C-alpha cells in the first residue's frame, strides 16, 4: 500500500503525516492528528456524525480520503469554541435547547450547523432542517435539534 505525505491545517494548526492512500480523512483526524471529537458512526456517509468543515464546507470525513485533504483548511468540533472556552453560537444554542443526550452524533450536527451559519449567514429553517435530515440521532427524537435550528435560522431576523 503506497504511502503519501499530507499536510493540512486543522483548527488553525499545521499537521503533517504519511498515510496510506486508503486512509479516510476521519481516521487521519482521529488517529494521526488526535481530534477524537470526529466521530465515526457508519463509515458510509449516512449518519453524519463524522462531519467536519473542509475549506468552508461541511464534509463527511468518512467519505473523503486524507490525501484528498492535502493542503486544505480543516475545522473539527474541537476548533469551534473560543480559546477562552466561550462556546460557538451553534454549541451554545444546542446546549440551551437540550439538543443532545449521548453526544455521539453531536459533533456532526454542530459542524453542519456551523458551516451553514458561518460568516453570519442566515439560512432558512427549511434549509437547515433539510441539511439536518442527513444526521442520524438515535437518542433525542430531534426535538432540541429542531428548536436549535429554528433559533439559528434566518427567521430570527424575519421570515425568510
Amino acid at each position: 500500500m503506497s504511502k503519501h505525505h499530507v499536510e493540512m491545517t486543522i483548527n488553525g494548526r499545521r499537521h503533517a503525516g504519511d498515510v496510506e492512500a486508503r486512509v479516510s480523512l476521519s481516521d487521519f483526524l482521529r488517529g494521526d492528528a488526535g481530534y477524537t471529537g470526529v466521530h465515526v458512526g457508519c463509515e458510509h456517509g449516512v449518519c453524519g456524525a463524522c462531519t467536519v468543515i473542509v475549506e468552508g464546507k461541511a464534509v463527511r470525513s468518512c467519505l473523503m480520503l486524507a490525501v484528498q485533504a492535502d493542503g486544505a483548511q480543516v475545522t473539527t468540533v474541537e476548533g469551534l469554541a473560543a480559546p477562552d472556552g466561550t462556546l460557538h453560537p451553534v454549541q451554545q444554542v444546542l446546549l440551551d435547547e437540550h439538543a443532545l443526550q449521548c453526544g455521539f452524533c453531536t459533533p456532526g450536527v454542530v459542524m453542519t450547523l456551523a458551516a451553514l451559519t458561518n460568516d453570519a449567514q442566515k439560512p432558512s429553517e427549511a434549509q437547515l432542517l433539510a441539511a439536518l435530515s442527513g444526521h442520524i440521532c438515535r437518542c433525542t427524537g430531534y426535538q432540541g435539534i429542531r428548536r436549535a435550528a429554528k433559533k439559528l435560522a434566518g427567521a430570527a431576523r424575519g421570515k425568510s
Partner: protein
Amino acid sequence: MSAVPAPDPEITPDPEPDPDTGAGRYIGKRVRRKEDPRLLTGRGQFVDDIVVPGMMHVAFARSAIARATILSINTVGAREVPGVHAVYTQKDLARFKVDMMNFFFISPEVEITPLANGRVAYVGEPVALVIADSRHIAEDGASLVEIEYAEEDPVVTIADARRGPPVHPGTNNNIAAQMGEEAIDEDLDALLKRAPYLITHKVVHQRISQSPMEMRGIVAVRDGSEELTLYITCQSPHVVARWTSLALGLPQTAIRVIAKDVGGAFGLKNHPWKEEVAVILAALEFGRPLKWIEDRYENLIAANQAREAEMVLKVAFDANGKLIASHGDYSCNNGAYPQLVDCNIAVQMFLWAAYKMPAYGFLARGWYTNTVGLAAYRGPWAMESLIRETALDVAARRLGLDPIEIRRRNLVTLKDQPTTSCMGIPLEDITPAECLDKLLENFDVAAFRQNQKAARKKGRYLGLGIAAYIEPTGSAGSIVTMTGELAQVHIEPTGKVTATMSTHSQGHGTATTMAQIIADRLGVAYEDVTVFEGDSSRGGFSPGAAGSRQGVIAGGAAIMASDLLAAKVKQLAGHLQGASPEDIRMEDGMVHVEGAPEKSRSLRSIAEIAYGEPDRLPPGFEAGLEAQYRYQPPPMTLTSAANACVVEVDAETGFVKILRWISAEDCGTTINPAVVEGQIAGGLAQAIGMVLLEEMAFDARGNPTAATYKDYLLPAISDIPDFEFVHASTPSKSVGGMRGVGEGGAIIGPPTLVNAIADALAPFGEVPVELPLTPAKLLSVIERRNIAAAADHATPAATGPDSSRASPEG
C-alpha cells in the same frame, strides 16, 4: 450576604413553568446538563478515543453462512500479512473456560463460545480473531482467513423453527424457552366462546437493530497477572466487571471497567458478548492491550438484535364493551445465541395489568433460529401494549364504540385501587385513566372527528390514535442483577460537593439529575456539585441503565446520602456555634443559625474544620464530611401514560405523515423536565422507526438484508414531529417520588401510531399489524390487493430512504 440569590445561569428560562412537583431550587427545573459542554466541544471520552501504550488492533473473520459445519480454517495467508501478529480461532482460546451467562448471571443451556467452535449458527458469527498493528491491517488479515464449510439449510423464521431441525446439536427441538399452557384452559375457553363479542387479533413485530450511534467496542488491558482493565462501551461498568469476573472465572483478578461516555445503548450493551469476550481472552493470551471497535456493518449483521415476535390475542367483551377474558399465544425469535434465552414472560404479566381484565391465559415460547441472537431493547416487553392497545381499537370499531370510551370502561382508575391484576400485579397508584383525562384536556376529539369527516370527503385520510399503558420501572430485589443504588456524597474541604455514584449515562444525563438533587438537599449551588460515575472502581454494584431505574433508585440514594450528610453538617455547625442542630439551615453554600444572622459562615469553613481540626469536633464525631447510603426502593414503581397522535395517510402513495403527537405521562416527581422529555421523545422516535421504517430482515438462506443505513432505515429529523408533553406528576412511594421514564416512549409509541394509521384507513378495512407499516403494505389495504408482496421482489426504491424522507415534517 445577599438574601436574594442571583439568577442562576445554568437554568434555561422556562416560558411555561412546570407544575409544582414538590420542587426545590433545582429539582423540577430545566437545568442545563453538566455532560453537554464536553460533548459539544469534542472532548467526550468514548471507547474508541482510548489509546493505551502498546495497544494493537483486532478484526474478526466472520461466517458468511447461516448454518454449517466448519471443515477447516486456514490462517496462513492472514499470518503472512506484514503487521499481523496473531490469528486466533476458538481452539487457541479453548484453555479459557468461559460461561456465557445472561444478564441474570445464569449459564446458557446450549454451548456458547466466543469464537465459532466447529459449527456456525448465524451469518456474521465470529470465527477467527486477527491481531495487527492497525485496524486496516487487521481487516486485511481477516479477509485472508479461509474457512471451508459444509453448508446446511438454515432455520430462519419462527415458522422455520417450529418445523425445522434443531439449531443446536443435542437438543430435541427449537424451543428455547416456554411458559404457560399448551392447551387453553377449559374455563377460560368457555368464557371466550360464550362472550357476546370475541376479537382475535394478530401482531407481527419485525426484528430491530438497537443501533446506538456508538457501536460496540472494547480496549482490554492486562496489567500483570492479576489485573485487568477494560474500557468498554456499556450500560453499567459494575455489571461488566461482575459478569467478566464470573464468566471468565477470574475471582482473584482485579477487574476495573471504565466507561466515561457511551454513545447510546438501548439494551444492546448490558454485558459483554462473543466479540468482547474474545478480545478479553485474546488480550490475556497475547499479553498486549487490544482494541476492537465494531464498525456499522458488523453492528448491523452481528450485534445482538431485538424484538421479532408474533402474537395472537383473543379478547372477549360483554355487550357493553367490558372485558370478560383473554388469551394470548406469543412467540419470539431468539436467534442462535440470545443474550437472554427468553419467552418474554413480562409481556404476559403486564398485558392487562392496567385494565379490569377478569381472566387471562397464555402460551409463550421463544424459538432458536440461525440468526444473530436477541438482546434487550428499550421496553423489551413492549409487545403487550402494542397488541392490547391495537386490539382495543379493533374491538371499538367492531362494537361501534369510541376508542376512548372502550378504554374508559375498562381502565383501572385511582378509585379502583388498591387492587391486584388478574396476573397478580399489585396496583396502588397507577394513573393511566387520569393520564387519558389529562391528554384529552389538550386535544379536542370532537373537532378532530369533524375535520376527519370533511377531509375524507375530499379523499384525504386523517386518523387519530390513542393508547394508554403502565410500565414497571425501578425494579429491585427480585432479580439478582437488579439491585438498589449506592450514593457516596462528600463535602470536600473546599466546600464543594462531589458524589461518587454507580449511575451510568448513555445519554441519560445522570451526572446532571443527581447533581440537581444533591444541590437541593445540601443547599449548595448546582455548579458546586460534581457527580463522578462510569468506573467500576468507584461506588458500589448497580446495574446502571436497565429497566428505567436510575432516576427512581439512584435519585432516592442521592437524597438519603445527602440528608445524612446534611445532618452531619448541622451537628458540627451546632457544636461550633453553640446552637441546636435543628436551628442550623444550609443555603447557598452557607451555614446559617436561625435567629442569629451574625453567626452565618461558609460551608467551606465548616468543612475545613471537619477535615483538619479534629480537636474542634464534637465528641464521637467522625472526621470529614462524607456520607453514603444504599437505597433499596419498593420492589417496583409503576409509571403510567396516555398518548395521542394524528396522522394523514396519502391514499395515492401509502405514505404516513404525523401531524400531531401528545404525550401525557405520570413519572412522579420530575427531576429535570428537559431530561424527562428527552427520554420520552427519544423513545417515541424509536417507536416511529419501528412502526414505519426499521426492519432487520433475512433472506431464505439467513443472510441479513440490511447491512448499511441505506437498507436499515432509521428515523431522520424529517420523520419525527414536534412532541407535546403533559406531565401528571403523581409522586410514587419511592424516596423522592420519582417514577421511571426511560422506556415508556418506545412502549406506548407503537400502538399510538398504529391506531392512528388504522383509524385513517378504517374506510378501507382493517390494517394488518405487521411492522413496519411500509407504504406498500398500506397501499395493499387501500387498493385491496397485495402490493407489498410485489414490492418485496422489486427494487428497494419502492420503500427507499430517499422517497420516505422527501416530505418535511407536519
